[in-house]
């Protein structure tokens, strides 16, 4: 059942196959700043009304990509299309696109109310109507009553929310959000996430979303693209990316993974890998990738939460495959979870995660708690172990 689509994956594909109506397209776009290549031959197709997230390490080109869509940067080469038409040379104010800037860019000479109403006024919506909508937008971001504050009289998170309200109020067809909730506490962020999601689905706005909060990306996105050095590494639904990463980098970037290097000893659909330490690991290939030939050097990736630790007592398990004997080095408390680090000879450190022990009834044996020094057996099922070649 491992490969069966998880519950979360009940979403409409947000990425448009060539031909299918795409709202925003970047075709083979490159952006250079002098010698720096910020975006490198990037191609994205974002379907109308999709919630599309850009993930990637700091400096990989996310903001630059958004700036090219908004029209603040011209691609050095390649083409940006919005609503099917090329927008080369179309100034930002003629694109029905709004941006929540990573650096907020609030107008210092206007108070919060005027900042939020700015977009409306440009479209001739003023007076009572403007006031009504501004109040509405500020309520949405939990800042009702802050109309008369100046930007520099606000806390970081409050400024960010003003920037958010200022963009949302315009109900554009495309909304670019550059870490729009980054400065908010978890509680508020959750509320905002729900607000954004409902807005997006109700009004049918296309969201292009940059975030560093993985749970946020995974729970909210229809599609996620993982970028690196200005290039696309992998694109797909959150579940695909999480369950079927196609490269070490993606497996390690989105969530954590344990990596075990080895050589393929049994090819075919159900692979067997031998580690240098002489251990035998059963694993599978990510969906859609053909298996490597026997003898190929590969890496096996296993999510920490898919690794179960058994007391050395349970020798029964030791026999079966996918079981590594090791010694606990750290046991760290993560609030709702406990993380164990286990040193396994010939493999290295293995990280395992489980719900905090208090959730388990005394009676049960599942995932007992171990202290540093305990000898344990780390085991997982084949479906949890992915064979990666990149």
């Amino acid at each position, binding site marked *: 059942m491992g490969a069966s689509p998880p519950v979360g994956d009940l979403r409409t594909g947000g990425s448009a196959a060539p031909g299918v109506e795409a709202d925003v397209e970047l075709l083979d776009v490159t952006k250079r700043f002098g010698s720096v290549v910020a975006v490198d031959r990037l191609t994205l197709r974002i379907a109308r009304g999709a919630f599309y997230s850009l993930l990637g390490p700091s400096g990989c080109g996310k903001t630059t990509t958004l700036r090219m869509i908004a029209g603040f940067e011209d691609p050095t080469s390649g083409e940006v299309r919005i609503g099917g038409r090329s927008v080369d040379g179309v100034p930002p104010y003629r694109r029905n696109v709004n941006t929540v800037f990573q650096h907020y860019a609030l107008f*210092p000479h206007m108070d919060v*109310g005027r900042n939020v109403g700015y977009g409306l006024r440009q479209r001739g919506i003023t007076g009572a109507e403007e006031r009504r909508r501004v109040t509405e937008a500020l309520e949405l971001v939990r800042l009702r009553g802050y109309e008369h504050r100046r930007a520099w009289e606000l806390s970081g998170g409050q400024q960010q929310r003003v920037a958010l309200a200022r963009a949302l109020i315009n109900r554009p067809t495309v909304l670019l959000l550059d870490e729009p909730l980054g400065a908010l506490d978890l509680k508020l962020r959750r509320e905002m996430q729900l607000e954004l999601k409902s807005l997006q689905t109700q009004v049918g706005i296309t969201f292009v979303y940059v975030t560093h909060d993985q749970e946020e990306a995974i729970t909210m996105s229809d599609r996620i693209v993982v970028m690196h050095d200005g290039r696309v590494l992998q694109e797909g639904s959150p579940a695909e990316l999480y369950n079927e990463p196609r490269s070490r980098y993606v497996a390690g970037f989105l969530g954590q993974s344990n990596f075990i290097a080895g050589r393929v000893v049994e090819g075919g659909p159900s692979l067997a890998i031998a580690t240098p330490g002489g251990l035998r690991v059963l694993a599978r290939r990510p969906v859609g990738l053909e298996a490597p030939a026997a003898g190929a050097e590969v890496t096996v990736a296993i999510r920490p939460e898919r690794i179960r630790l058994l007391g050395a007592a349970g020798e029964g398990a030791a026999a079966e495959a996918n079981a590594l004997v090791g010694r606990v080095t750290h046991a760290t408390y993560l609030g709702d979870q406990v993380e164990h680090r286990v040193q396994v000879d010939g493999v290295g450190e293995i990280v395992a995660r489980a719900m905090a022990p208090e959730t388990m009834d005394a009676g049960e044996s599942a995932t007992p708690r171990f202290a540093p020094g305990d000898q344990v057996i780390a085991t997982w099922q084949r479906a949890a172990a992915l064979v990666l070649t990149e």
Partner: protein
Amino acid sequence: MSRRSRRPRAVTALLLAPTTAWYLLLLLAPLAILVIFSLGERSPVGGYLPGLSLDNYARLPTRATAFANTFALAAVSTGLCALIGYPLAYYLATRAGSKRTILLVLVVLPFLTSFLIRTYAWFTILGANGLPAVAAALGVEPKPVLLNTHLAVFVGIVYNYLSLMVFPIYVSLERLDKRLLEASKDLGAGRWATFRQVTLPLSAPGLVSGGLLVFIPMMGEYIVPALLGGGKVFFVGNALVDLFLQSRNWPFGSAMAIGLIVVVLISVTAYLRIAARGRVERETSLL
């Protein structure tokens, strides 16, 4: 910061002490003299006899026209300089390094050649043998008269005052945060809208400073209009020269000078108030 605003830093104060003293002397000493004179009376041989009367002020209305002309000239000229100076400053602020340098120098250059030479150059250019002759040669009929026209006067004034307007505006635009302009455009404001709602208010300090630098000296100006305008219009400046250099009526002259200062203070403060209120209204939400 709160601390600074609560009590000026010791150092600032220290730095300032001499400056302030120095400056107050520079500024107030002459003013004081003027006030004292203005209360005195004219001695038979002219000049000043100590006294304590307001008669001289009572006589100011006889120079009402001069005040009116002066104010009109100053106001129009300031507007004109702003109109011409702002785009120029904007252009400078958006140029790159060395090119900008050259341009900056070009803007001040007219200041270099002494006033006299500038004015004579203008005589030659605008005089009957200058541009008009050229125009006539090119078949313009009738031969246009340029000298002693409003045009001539404003050419001269712009030439003499433009850079005072350009530089403060240039400085205020120079550090303008480009990201705010992006935000404005992102929100659908075209170039003009962005200029009106973001660039202009954010460069207001420069515009105001430039305005003061042009308006206030203009209130004392009379030579340019005299030389290029034919001196048939009476300005406070002329009146003052007449009083100090001809009838040698220092007390009345001083009274007029004081009157001028008062007019300036009133109009400028009024202007700044309005500008400020205007800005506040623009910036503050109606909610």
